[in-house]
């Protein structure tokens, strides 16, 4: 290791002595592994070559130009333009976010305030999508939707994404709910608010940060979702990840990387907004 880097690590060590240095190296290594794919992708998007060799032989903005061209004048070969895919993605993400929140806020309230039979089971069921294999979930949903007597397009993506986002939204809302004592709610009732009014006027505003965190997480999860969506999309309704994948299987061209950089930027902006809104340590993933 070069000496300036070494001194940087030593200067930033949180623990004294050898243990501290080891911890620094370990966490540095893991962080590097985590960002490596993103870094590779960014480097590749600036490739000047026309193949996928890494590292690229030369650098240029040609793939960004190509990406821009695809966006403004779609290829005839594409079944669907990126613009349409992006619109679908945004629509699905927004709807998933809204529905997940509408379900999660009352659910969090009930889970924290009320004692009811089957509460433990409800909690388990709520977090099932976290451990359930995505492929199985996608397949199961496909079977259900195909057995319906009517055709669902966008809405079946929304339903799937709400299921996937729900555990995260409920978890954030529950965490926010736990910090609200029942006395403020009772105080509102004593002052003349009906139980429902007390929730709207006092509980929901105090849950605000948790609700916002949940909403943004739901949006991000829906926007990035691939596996389950892959089972449920069709030629008319396609999200951005699916659109990108369909381009890479036919002909793997680095345009995809420039799109990917764009998506990563959007995700970063959303996560940054999340941290700003909620503050450090307020979000539970």
């Amino acid at each position, binding site marked *: 290791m070069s000496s300036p880097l070494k001194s940087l690590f030593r200067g930033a060590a949180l623990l004294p002595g050898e243990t501290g240095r080891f911890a620094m190296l370990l966490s540095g290594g893991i962080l590097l592994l985590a960002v490596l794919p993103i870094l590779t992708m960014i480097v590749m998007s600036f490739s000047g070559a026309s193949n996928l060799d890494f590292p690229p032989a030369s650098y240029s903005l040609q793939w960004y130009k190509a990406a821009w061209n695809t966006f403004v004048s779609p290829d005839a070969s594409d079944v669907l333009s990126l613009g349409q895919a992006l619109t679908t993605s945004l629509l699905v993400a927004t709807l998933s976010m809204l529905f997940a929140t509408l379900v999660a806020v009352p659910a969090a309230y009930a889970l924290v305030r009320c004692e009811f039979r089957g509460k433990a089971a409800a909690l388990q069921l709520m977090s099932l999508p976290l451990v359930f294999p995505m492929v199985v979930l996608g397949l199961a949903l496909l079977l259900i939707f195909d057995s319906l007597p009517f055709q669902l397009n966008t809405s079946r993506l929304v339903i799937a994404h709400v299921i996937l986002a729900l555990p995260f939204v409920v978890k954030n809302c529950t965490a926010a709910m736990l910090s609200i004592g029942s006395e403020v709610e*009772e105080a509102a009732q004593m*002052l003349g608010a009906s139980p429902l009014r007390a929730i709207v006027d006092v509980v929901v505003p105090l849950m605000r940060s948790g609700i916002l965190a949940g909403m943004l997480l739901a949006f991000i999860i829906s926007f990035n979702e691939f596996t389950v969506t892959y089972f449920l999309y069709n030629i008319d309704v396609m999200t951005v990840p699916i659109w990108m994948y369909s381009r890479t299987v036919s002909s793997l061209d680095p345009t995809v990387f420039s799109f990917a950089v764009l998506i990563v930027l959007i995700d970063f902006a959303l996560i940054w907004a999340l941290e700003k809104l909620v503050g450090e340590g307020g979000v539970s993933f």
Partner: protein
Amino acid sequence: MSGLVLENVEKHYGSACAVTDVNLHLPEGKLVCFLGPSGCGKTTLLRMIAGLETLSDGEIRLDGEDIGHTPAHQRNFGMVFQSLALFPHMTVGENIAYPLRLRGVSKADQQARVTELLQLIQLQEMVDRPVAKLSGGQRQRVAIARAIAARPKLLLLDEPLSALDAKLRESMQVEIRQLQQRLNITTILVTHDQREAMTMADIVVVLGEHRVQQVGTPIEIYRNPANAFVADFIGSGNIFPAIALGNGRVSLPGGAAIQVPICESIQAGTSIKMLVRPEDLTLSLPQATAGNRLQGTVTFVRDSGATIETTIDCSGVSLTALSTPCQGIGLAIGNPVSVTIPAEACRVLTA
């Protein structure tokens, strides 16, 4: 009957009894204090009056109207919670205006009432402050202002001063009492602090072991406790077993006898319990036993500066005497001493 009437009120959770057999009449405009050790059911009783707990049995009537099953938000009672429960997302002004907003009071009238209340609690310049920026005592005042903003029929205070430090608590006790008298609002205060009850209450309701033990003015309860529980809970007292000998004579466990006129009606040979308050005992340098003067030995001295508490072993009974420094006779552990038990200060307790 005007005022608040509780009739056979009872609350149990499953088989566990929280409070039972409560019959009370709280007259209008008075400050009534529910006093008792923790777990005696005083907060449960207050919450039933507030409408935050359902009644298991019995009736609650306000000015003749049965309110036992009216939801809390329709009772129009003001309440100050132990945690104060101010709304942290609202300013001082918004907190106080909240009950008015719920009642559809016009913006201008809300404003006027908030200003009036802030003047009352002397926090006029705080109207736009978030409640988190207030000190403990200021929050206390805002909570009270919010509770009385909609002119409630009853003000309920659930140990509202327990979070404050001792000095502030004492001044808030006086402040709340003065405010209550000025507004002439019927108020119920729940506390486990008997000093607080003595300072503030018109009527004290002593609760213990899930039922009402005694109802009376603070002085009545202190001077004439109805039973051993009240005597033990209110103030510090010397409570000791004794046996009536007839003709008003009573023998202590160690064999010494004293003359207590109120025991004249008690049949000879009956076991009784006696109460003497520490401040009623007089200590003197050893003198011959005569009348109600007994001999004892000092076992402990606690000199707190303002008062001296002397514990004496006297005829098989451990007595504590309270004296002021100028009455002190310089006793130390092991010293012999004479104790005078004034006959008129003795109380006989039913167990």
